[in-house]
């Protein structure tokens, strides 16, 4: 009951207020029930582009991280724990990096005048900063995806490594190979499904968190299209207060999407756990 109150209470308060404000029932602009803000948001192409862009960035960041982490485990399982001689695996290091610092580091490394561009100049590949193919501020979100992948991939290497040990994936892959499977086939058909199934709920929540990221898109994202989190802050922070109901409508729309997706992701978990136990 206490847990419901301490987490659910503020969430319910926030959602109720967003609904009331966006419908003209609360806040500074309350003039009675009105669907104007919702109609404007749902008709606005930018809303759907931002939602699609957020989901694309989340899926691409997570997809690249999953592929990278599985490759690390498949090619050199010991690499997941490499460097542990000093007591802690270096794969843990990016977990210690705040998103704001990750964004700053991306600017310093990957920007047009960043360190890589300077090396490219020293090697004679470019003559001006503008010639460097920086992924930052691109409309396809590549800068955000690269930076988020750099943070998430190491975490997934650690997570998958632990899950692989927990589910004895190494032994099962070996067994598959003794039965005639190729190294790639054994990992593709035995190792990868086992690890991904065990990690599915975490990956689902991670996908939603990456889709709603704020700091990294703020620092290395393009001004258009923007992630939905940036769109909400843009609408919310304008001097013209008339856009606030729209900000609340977009925020509530995103809340509903995430709530539905996370319910699906987390409901799937006990079934997976049951089948593992069987």
């Amino acid at each position, binding site marked *: 009951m206490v847990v419901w109150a301490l987490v659910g209470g503020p969430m319910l308060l926030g959602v109720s207020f967003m609904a009331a404000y966006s419908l003209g029932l609360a806040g500074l602009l309350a003039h009675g029930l009105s669907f104007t803000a919702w109609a404007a948001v749902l008709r606005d192409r930018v809303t759907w582009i931002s939602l699609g862009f957020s989901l694309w960035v989340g899926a691409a960041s997570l997809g690249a991280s999953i592929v990278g982490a599985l490759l690390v485990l498949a090619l050199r399982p010991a690499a997941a724990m490499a460097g542990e001689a000093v007591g802690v695996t270096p794969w843990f290091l990016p977990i210690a990096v705040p998103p704001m610092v990750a964004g700053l580091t991306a600017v310093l490394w990957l920007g047009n005048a960043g360190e890589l561009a300077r090396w490219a100049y020293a090697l004679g590949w470019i003559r001006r900063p503008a010639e460097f193919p920086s992924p930052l501020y691109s409309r396809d979100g590549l800068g955000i995806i690269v930076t988020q992948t750099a943070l998430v991939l190491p975490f997934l290497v650690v997570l998958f490594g632990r899950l692989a040990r927990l589910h004895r994936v190494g032994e099962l892959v070996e067994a598959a190979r003794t039965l005639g499977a190729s190294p790639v086939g054994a990992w593709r058909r035995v190792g990868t499904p086992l690890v991904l199934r065990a990690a599915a709920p975490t990956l689902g929540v991670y996908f939603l968190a990456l889709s709603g990221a704020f700091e990294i898109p*703020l620092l290395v994202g393009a001004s258009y299209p923007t992630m939905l989190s940036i769109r909400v802050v843009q609408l919310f922070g304008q001097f013209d207060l008339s856009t606030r109901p729209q900000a609340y409508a977009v925020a509530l729309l995103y809340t509903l999407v995430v709530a539905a997706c996370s319910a699906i992701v987390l409901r799937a978990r006990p079934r997976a756990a049951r089948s593992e136990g069987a």
Partner: protein
Amino acid sequence: MRRAAGIALWAAFLAPVALLLGWSFAWRWPWPAPLPERWQASAWTGLAATGGLGAAALRSLGIAGAVALVATSLGFVTSRSAVEARSGVALRWLLHLPFALSPVVLGVGLEYSFLRAGLAGHMVGVALAQGILAYAYAVILFCGLWNARTRAYLDGAATLGATPRQAWIRVLLPIARPLVVLCLVQTFLISWFDYALVLLIGEGRVATLTTSLYQFLLAGDLRLAAASGLILLLPPVIALAVRAQRRPPTFAGEWDL
């Protein structure tokens, strides 16, 4: 071979930190020089001299410390009821929702209520908003504590005549100690890393290290931004260094509910 791979990995992961260090000690680093033209420590002495950033660092520390203490204490005490709740799936969904949802959405939703309550633009308001995330995390983490073995220990203590209070202090706390330490560190970092809630609930009146870093970056002062970034890295790096000395509990408890 494994040693070489380890060294290569450490080098790859430490390179960004080295770049931050380079920028924080650079006097001038014009394009296209791969290294600074001259070195100096003015960014660091400037940080020390600038009262604003010192105060921001202390504020971050204070907010994160309070969030960690309160969230860990509450999470530890209330996690058992979460495990024993009939509505397990729904509660698990609710506890994960603050993480799945963008902090921006959480902040936008809470801002007006906090404003009416006089909490917006204040450290306490920021700490309370971050506390929702931190508390949810603490409950998720401590749910892993309430397994059959812990219950057996508590039942055994009760059978031997221990009062509930004695069982908690003499049996449960020693078992839970590694998880409590882990929870304190993680909830501290949830607050320490946060920018969105500080921005929205703080309304620009609560300056922390993350907001200062963004301001330096906006102003184009990469040296001060890099120095702020390095300060932000300090607590998590210290936590990792401590982890290197003492192994924490397995991940299993962290993800199971």
